[in-house]
């Protein structure tokens, strides 16, 4: 139903009119006075109010005069909803006196720390005191004293003397994050934010409390005393630490990345960031950074010039190309999800046309195949969070895509969205889900089929009990089936729930759903930041840029006006490339920001680098795989380069370049261009703009997506491709950043605070992909496998392994960020106490795990969240001396991984 919208963006039937300082303004029914005045550009000072949290009306800074049955009275603008005909006065003498009074009271116990306080210079208390407060202090008594600062966690410190008891942090922790670990203690002017004795504020979202604290009470260890606000420069960017694509500002001082702050992007992160995304900037200056090219000489990597490194790389790749008949069997390329979209495009051109191999894969065996990511009908985060029913078949989203977790949690808590979760292990979302069905790992497909079957599960014979389906009780299946039947259009969030089960198992579940409910739309969540962008650029076997198949794009790209040549047939996936390399059949292997030795879910992954292939590592960090390479090419990382990135919705947003790459590190597209030259070819790119120009010319998906558009202020929330037409009118004002909601985020004068509102320009381009309006004939389509993989019957002595992601793992960004690295858990095998008791073992014991990957030592731990018959071991975690990580247990070619635990002798 179309609704008419007035110039303030409010649907007209929900509009009321209020008078603010004598001027009539439109307001939305039910909104608080403060959001109406914000929209009208009338500033009301505030501390406790935050546009993304429920108001509490505590600080009393926002008092304004409001008409009521007993005349005008002082009321909190953040707490009183507008009513038609309401009169509001924000600038009377009475209001001014109240504001002045509140500020004076706030300063009574506030220490004179400004010169040494991190907040000094970007502090709402300073700023609003200057604008609304008393000029001088009348307070001559002794101030309140506390020991300072105290540690709430390894990341967050609290200075109680500076706290103004606004409850932003405590409300965030309990309401938004669902981690109610901090709260007020004591009362009156002894009130302090506190944590239970012996506890730590261990929340993946703790950094947000620092971001929203309106004073310098909460500081983050990675930023503490690192800079003064007036020395900071900033640029807007998009977090790529996972594929949610949260909007950030990157701040730097003296060419060093110093801090990230969350930007309020309505369709994505609504101002929040997870701690990994917020604090992994330290990886920019990690000791493991590669800053100079290196080549292997006499078994050692030695530094060299770019010219020499490129020459050596080209030689090795060229040699491999010479001996093979088909480049796809000679040269393999792994990675690309770390690149910007433009880098990825340049690399795709190098790989698929200059080198001519189709054996390139940005997915490291941990996501869904490209045809699922690109070919399933898409749903945006907003669509997922406004759907009445969402089916979630993913790993624990708090570990994989923390801010998507927050969005889904909020939707579920609002009562708007019912979440039905299918999982093999307990997740953080479970608490908020309407139904959580715990199925036997690998068997999601049969569960999905039963949930959408025409009738409830039946007993095998009359009078017999109905057997469970995939380990789920028949009654649970029936109940959930009834719930699902009540919803006509389903939205699903899907991803690889465990790296110990093959992609086929997940694809089969998606296929079952898409067969039963063809109209279902999907949010495909994957782990690596810009995987979607890499796939859009064609960095996967069988596809070309623009979500088209090799065949679909051949005429365009093989033409002289295109790339001149494309691979003849579909190449190898990462797993196949690694196997081929391990067997010695691959001539050259290029690692594009990938570390398969530790970051690929197969026990044999490291053999690939000792099979004789010539290995070129393009990398920012000297990871395990790069250490074994023949040539190491130093790449720029995150804040050292620009371009665009694409999140798992397919939303394209900008990356901000803020600092220069260290040493001789280059941007990835430049490495591609130079390598092409060294190979005797020419990509034709001397700048980003060249890449963008070619892309808009050749790729229908990007047809209207020019730098002019992505840099336009009004497209900062991103663009869902494809754009049906060239958008016009991009001159809109830049996004207003709210420096009281997020102190330090910008230098906007405070009377320009505007509530976040979605950019109307691109609304409506939400649905893309095959079912979308603009899918081209050669589009990648989701191909449903003929049948789900055959699963071995569960055997009574085995445990089926689940290897989920953990937010803090041994990835280069976490390891390279000292403050995060310390938080990464140690990898243990977690099992139900029944299973452990049976072995006579207990938490902390070292047992032998007999697995498809061989027999290895592991440390076990009791965890009754884990179902009987299941074992859980986080992927890519550090492990105790002598024991192995999950990777060593997994055989990726088997549909599931069964392990047997045995006591040592």
């Amino acid at each position, binding site marked *: 139903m179309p609704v008419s919208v007035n110039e303030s963006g409010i649907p007209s039937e929900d509009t009321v009119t209020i008078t603010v300082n004598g001027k009539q303004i439109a307001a939305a029914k039910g909104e608080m006075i403060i959001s109406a005045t914000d929209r009208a550009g009338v500033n009301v000072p505030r501390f406790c109010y935050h546009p993304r949290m429920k108001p509490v009306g505590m600080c009393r800074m926002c008092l304004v005069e409001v008409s009521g049955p007993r005349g005008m009275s002082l009321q909190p603008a953040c707490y009183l909803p507008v009513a038609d005909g309401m009169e509001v006065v924000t600038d009377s003498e009475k209001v001014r006196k*109240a504001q002045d*009074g509140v500020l004076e*009271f*706030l300063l009574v*116990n506030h220490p004179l720390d400004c010169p040494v306080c991190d907040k000094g210079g970007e502090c709402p208390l300073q700023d609003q005191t200057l604008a609304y407060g008393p000029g001088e202090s009348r307070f001559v*008594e002794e101030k309140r004293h506390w020991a300072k600062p105290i540690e709430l966690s390894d990341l967050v410190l609290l200075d109680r003397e500076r706290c103004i008891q606004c409850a932003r942090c405590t409300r965030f922790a309990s309401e938004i994050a669902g981690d109610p670990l901090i709260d007020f203690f004591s009362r009156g002017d002894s009130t302090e934010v506190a944590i239970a004795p012996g506890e730590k504020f261990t929340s993946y979202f703790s950094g947000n409390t620092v971001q929203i604290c309106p004073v310098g009470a909460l500081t983050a260890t990675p930023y503490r005393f690192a800079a003064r606000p007036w020395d900071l420069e900033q640029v807007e960017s998009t977090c790529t630490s996972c594929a949610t694509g949260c909007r950030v500002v990157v701040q730097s001082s003296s060419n060093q990345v110093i801090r990230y702050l969350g930007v309020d992007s309505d369709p994505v992160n609504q101002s929040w960031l997870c701690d990994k995304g917020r604090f992994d900037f330290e990886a920019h200056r990690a000791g493991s950074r590669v800053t100079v090219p290196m080549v292997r000489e006499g078994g050692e990597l030695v530094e060299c010039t770019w010219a020499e490194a490129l020459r050596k790389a080209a030689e090795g790749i060229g040699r491999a190309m010479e001996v093979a008949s088909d480049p796809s069997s000679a040269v393999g390329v792994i990675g690309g999800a770390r690149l910007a979209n433009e880098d990825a495009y340049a690399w795709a051109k190098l790989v698929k046309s200059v080198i001519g191999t189709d054996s390139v894969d940005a997915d490291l065996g941990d996501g869904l195949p490209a045809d699922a990511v690109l070919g399933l009908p898409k749903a945006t985060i907003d669509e997922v969070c406004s759907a009445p029913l969402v089916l979630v078949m993913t790993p624990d989203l708090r570990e994989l895509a923390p801010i998507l977790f927050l969005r889904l949690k909020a939707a579920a808590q609002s009562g708007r969205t019912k979440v039905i979760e299918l999982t093999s292990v307990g997740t953080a979302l479970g608490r908020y889900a309407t139904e959580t069905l715990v199925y036997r790992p690998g068997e999601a497909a049969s569960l999905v089929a039963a949930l959408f079957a025409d009738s409830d599960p039946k007993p095998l014979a009359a009078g017999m009990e109905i057997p469970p389906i995939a380990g789920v009780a028949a009654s649970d299946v029936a109940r959930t089936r009834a719930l699902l039947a009540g919803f006509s259009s389903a939205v699903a969030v899907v991803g690889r729930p465990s790296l110990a089960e093959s992609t086929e198992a997940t694809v089969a579940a998606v296929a079952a759903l898409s067969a039963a409910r063809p109209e279902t739309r999907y949010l495909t969540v994957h782990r690596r930041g810009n995987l979607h962008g890499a796939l859009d650029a064609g960095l996967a076997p069988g596809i070309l840029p623009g979500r088209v198949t090799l065949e679909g794009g051949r005429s365009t790209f093989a033409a002289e006006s295109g790339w001149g040549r494309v691979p003849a047939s579909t190449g190898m996936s990462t797993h196949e490339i690694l196997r081929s390399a391990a067997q010695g059949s691959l001539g050259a292997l290029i690692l594009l920001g990938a570390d398969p030795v530790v970051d690929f879910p197969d026990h044999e992954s490291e053999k690939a680098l000792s099979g004789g292939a010539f290995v070129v590592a393009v990398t920012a960090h000297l990871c395990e795989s790069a250490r074994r390479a023949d040539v190491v090419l130093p790449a720029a990382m995150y804040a050292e380069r620009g371009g665009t990135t694409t999140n798992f919705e397919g939303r394209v947003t900008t990356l901000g370049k803020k600092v220069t790459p260290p040493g001789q590190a280059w941007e990835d597209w430049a490495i591609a261009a130079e390598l092409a030259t060294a190979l005797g070819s020419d990509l034709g790119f001397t700048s980003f703009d060249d890449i963008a120009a070619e892309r808009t010319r050749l790729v229908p998906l990007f047809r209207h997506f020019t730098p002019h558009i992505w840099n336009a202020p009004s497209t900062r929330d991103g663009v869902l491709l494809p754009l049906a037409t060239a958008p016009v009118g991009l001159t809109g004002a830049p996004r207003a950043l709210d420096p009281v909601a997020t102190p330090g985020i910008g230098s906007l004068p405070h009377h320009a605070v505007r509530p976040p509102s979605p950019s109307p320009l691109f609304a409506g381009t939400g649905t893309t992909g095959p079912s979308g309006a603009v899918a081209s004939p050669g589009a990648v389509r989701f191909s449903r496998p003929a049948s789900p993989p055959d699963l071995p019957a569960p055997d009574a002595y085995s445990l089926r392994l689940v290897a989920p992601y953990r937010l803090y793992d041994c990835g280069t960004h976490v390891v390279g960020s000292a403050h995060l690295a310390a938080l990464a858990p140690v990898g243990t095998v977690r099992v139900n106490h029944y299973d452990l008791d049976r072995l006579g073992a207990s938490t902390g014991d070292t047992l032998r795990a007999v697995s498809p990957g061989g027999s290895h030592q592991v440390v076990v731990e009791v965890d009754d969240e884990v179902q009987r018959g299941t074992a859980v071991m986080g992927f890519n975690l550090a492990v105790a001396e002598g024991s192995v990580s999950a990777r060593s247990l997994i055989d990726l070619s088997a549909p599931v991984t069964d392990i047997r635990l045995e006591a040592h002798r």
Partner: protein
Amino acid sequence: MSGTPRTGAPFIVTSRTGDATRPPMEEGHTLNAYLASGGYQGLRKALTMNPEEVVAEVLASNLLGRGGAGFEAGRKWSMVRPNPVRYLVINGDESEPATFKDRMLMERDPHQLVEGTLIAAYAIGAAQAFIFIRGEFALGMERVIAAVNDAYRHGAIGANIFGSGFSVDLVVHPGAGAYICGEETALLESLEGKRGYPRIKPPFFPAAIGLYGEPTVVNNVETVSNLPWIVSNGGAAFAALGQGRSTGTRIFALSGHVVRPGNYEVEMSKLTFRDLIFDPELGGGVRGGKSVKAFIPGGASAPWFGPDQLDLPLDQDAVGKAGSMLGSGSVIVMDSDTCAVRAAWRIARFFHRESCGQCTPCREGSGWIDKVMRRIEDGQGREEDLDLLMDACDNIAPGVSWPPAQTTICVLGPSIPSSVAWSIRMFRDEYLLHIKEGACPCP
């Protein structure tokens, strides 16, 4: 003269005026004694009426709330949002300095409270009622709990009360030691297991959004203790006592420099403060025959009165018109030797210690005012401190008048000026003397 102590226990009166049928004080808390004096007849009678008729009787009685705000009980009940679930909460948190009448009602006459509670529950249609008792009231708690248990056994509480078909459960909840939990919305938060933070009105008027979000009536212990008598004798009989809107009798907790401090139940409006303080059967005059320097007519939250207001009647509206309130019904008398600064400081210190800390003006203002007042009392004051104090009061309660405007969430904040600002207004010279002499000049 009304309000004669009947029990031999000096200075304490609990009897309904002229009602000689009440049990003696010493055993009044037992079910047998209560029944012997006609206990639970009010409830039985109420159960034969329909709830609207009970409400009508209470409206007719014009019973004013005895917790502080003095709102008509019947009107409060009529305003409860229609809803399948309604709660009744009895406020027995009585923590205001010098207020001690609910304590006595709970210790000495717990069944009257229970019976009144049940009548109120029936009238408003509550299936669940709570009595929230100040945690420090050990004896009161013990006796109310015993009374509730006995009443359950007697069939007066629980399912199908006295075979009437009406059922209600009654839970006694101990407070955790905070004055602010007497404020009705903080009380509800506390009852829900949360920090005792007052809620913001609007929208959190208990009658609309109360306990667990359901419509709720909060009534004071003394308010509902009147109900058995009102139902038994009729609202008109209650309204016949007193004058104007101030009907019935009321218990005044008299304290300070009087000869006979104690609880006195007297007919409203008929006596003056002078009567209450000086009548030999009541306060018995000021200690040592001294004169009254000032008095507080309605608890520590109320603005002070001087001797010229002694002839005001004990009437809610008359006291209100004169710029203070009858409040919680506690009258504090200060004789001519009292140091006004010290007295005001002690009250300010109380509010500082009891501020919940939720809103800035009260949290920080109370502490600041406490410190300045103490400094003046200690002889370290400066002349500009008086303007400072008045202005700080103005920033909590703009205009510094009564009833107060407020920049705060609840009325605890604006209660601070009641002693500080009014004492400065009344005794400015005494403040200046402290400042000039660098010491407290009082004996």
